[in-house]
């Protein structure tokens, strides 16, 4: 569940709706009622207002803390550091992006083996996004020329053909800048 929420676009979309729908319901109801149903001044007391205000701000701060603290483990810098410190050695891949293709030192990986993607751009800003065979983005990296490698460790857990796409607009054939990665079952 948490994995879905924090590690997929649709998880992000779910979180979006969890915030937006209550806001929409309450705010639009208030506007509708106070503009069309009963426009008279309300008798709500100051004590009641400050109670509501306290409750609202507590809720906001609580959501702020909970969502961000739970999300820490899904930050690539964190899971990369964890994988780097584990006993399993990561496979290193060097990637050079240049308008409009990728040069990758390795294109085939095994399920369960951590892979360290080290990517640079040789000309303009490019992206390196790896898509799950089902179509969702697993991760994307932005590659700015001249600033060194963008890097993270990712461990594939399903075999298949994974699409690579550039997600930073890079000129005339930007939409053709893509590649493929093959992930196979673990050999041992």
């Amino acid at each position: 569940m948490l994995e879905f929420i924090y590690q997929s676009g649709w998880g992000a979309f779910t979180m979006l709706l969890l915030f937006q729908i209550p806001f929409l319901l309450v705010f639009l109801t208030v506007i509708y009622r106070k503009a069309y149903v009963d426009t008279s001044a309300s008798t709500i007391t100051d004590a009641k207002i400050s109670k509501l205000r306290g409750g609202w701000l507590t809720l906001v701060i609580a959501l702020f803390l909970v969502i961000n603290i739970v999300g820490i483990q899904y930050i690539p810098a964190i899971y990369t550091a964890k994988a780097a410190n584990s006993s399993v050695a990561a496979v290193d891949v060097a990637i050079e992006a240049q308008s409009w293709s990728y040069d990758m030192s390795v294109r085939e990986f095994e399920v369960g083996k951590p892979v360290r993607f080290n990517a640079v751009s040789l000309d303009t800003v490019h992206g390196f996004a790896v898509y799950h065979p089902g179509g969702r983005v697993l991760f994307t990296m932005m590659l700015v020329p001249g600033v060194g490698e963008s890097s993270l460790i990712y461990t594939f857990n399903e075999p298949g053909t994974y699409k690579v796409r550039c997600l930073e607009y890079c000129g005339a054939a930007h939409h053709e800048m893509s590649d493929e990665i093959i992930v196979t079952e673990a050999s041992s």
Partner: protein
Amino acid sequence: MSYATSMVAAVPVFGRMFKVESEAELEDINAWPAAMIMASFIWFFAAVLLGISLPLTQMLGLDASLFYTAITGHGAAMAFPFVFQLMMGVGLHRAAGCVGKPVSGWIPATAFWMMNIGALLFTIAILMGLKISYAVMYPLPVVGVETGQWSMTSLIIGFTGIAGILVTVIVLFPVQVIKMFFFDKEREELVLHRRKLSDPGMLGMAMAAFVLLIMGSPLLIVASAVLLGLYGILPFAWIPWATDPMVFQFVFYIFAHNLMEAMAIMIVSAVYATLPLYLADGTRQLYSNKLANLALWILLVTSVTSFFHHFYTMFPALPSALSYHGNIMSWGTGVGAAITIFTITMTIVKHGLRAEAGVMAVLMGFTLYILDGVSAIITSTVAWSYQLHGTMWQAGHTMAVLIAVAMMWMGVLLHHYPVITGRVLDKTRGMWFVILYTVGAMGLAYSFLAAGAAGMPRRFASWDQEGWMIYGYLILFFGLCMTLSMLIFFIDVSKARRINTGAEAAPAE
């Protein structure tokens, strides 16, 4: 009649929508704002047509270069000569009427011409082949010349245009605001509704002026150096500090991010000023000015350094400490927004609302702005950024914040329209505009965000992969809704009725 007023009156079609027929003594706070507002809607008209053409080029399978041309023009026209110019026009009129200072002289005139000639030059460059998106994507403009994608001439013309726009946004507009707030002499006859700087309806305007001036200066310096290099005045060997991609990216986003935040701070402030004028019990006060100002201060402080969220996915080139900082600051703006939501809701609950098109546009724009704020803090959370950065989610966020801010300013404009032009608008048309615009904007935002969740890349001329075209159809449908709402708005302002002098008093502010 001033030169700005006669110029507006002389423009075909759009001139009659915004020509100034108000009292002559208000000329100094109406003339240039009316010119800016009129010009902004001409650009909006062009931007909407280009926007509609984007899904069409994909559905009809037209050449990718058309798509990239249209997207560059669409984004640039929406952000600068439309939304920023509309804000500048309405905002300057509003601020001037609150402090009784004129919006006349060379600064507003130069701001107007620099913005519009700049945008025109950029448009010419785009038509000559410069396809760099409104985010410039530096060093793409230079790489594109090296690889023969566009010419050096188009790059020089384009960058000259951008420089004109930047001078208006970063220098002329903020200087005019600061001059009015802190220097010029008050003229009694120009005061429409006196406000102090501590008033929530004014404070945001002052904050925004300083944000633009301070956060924009580094970009102005770097961009000027690059431009002088392109002109051949400065040898490129002298300015490696300006041509470095990372330097340019940072100064660009420190500016571009804060430009959006400044526009948000300014419009929240305008909402604080406008809402009380439409309360049913005639209170003309927010439920709490202190809480309103607190929200503005929180927004100001947190927004300044949240720009790091544009760079999370280049880790470790962006150290993770700066990513966490950007993450927390981005959520901090949400705390400011939560306080604003409370202030506005409680004000309406306590005092009731007079449902008129102006205030409804402001409130629906505010609703869109808050909905968009959620999409912004989600994509500004480090973990989610890795799934969403560079997808349609972010295109949707940028677009939604622009159309939300535009709608709020259009609401404020509907409120000020009688004072500026001396004409009144039709209530039914105003309401239809609000309804269709809201439906169109919400539909567009959700279509883009869902496309992004599905992994559809932004600025990507190949929608026919992975079943993404469905989002294209949704975008086209809701885009047409917005087009229709805009046409109703244009009909409304074209057919506005002259106020009979003395018979129908203009709303005071």
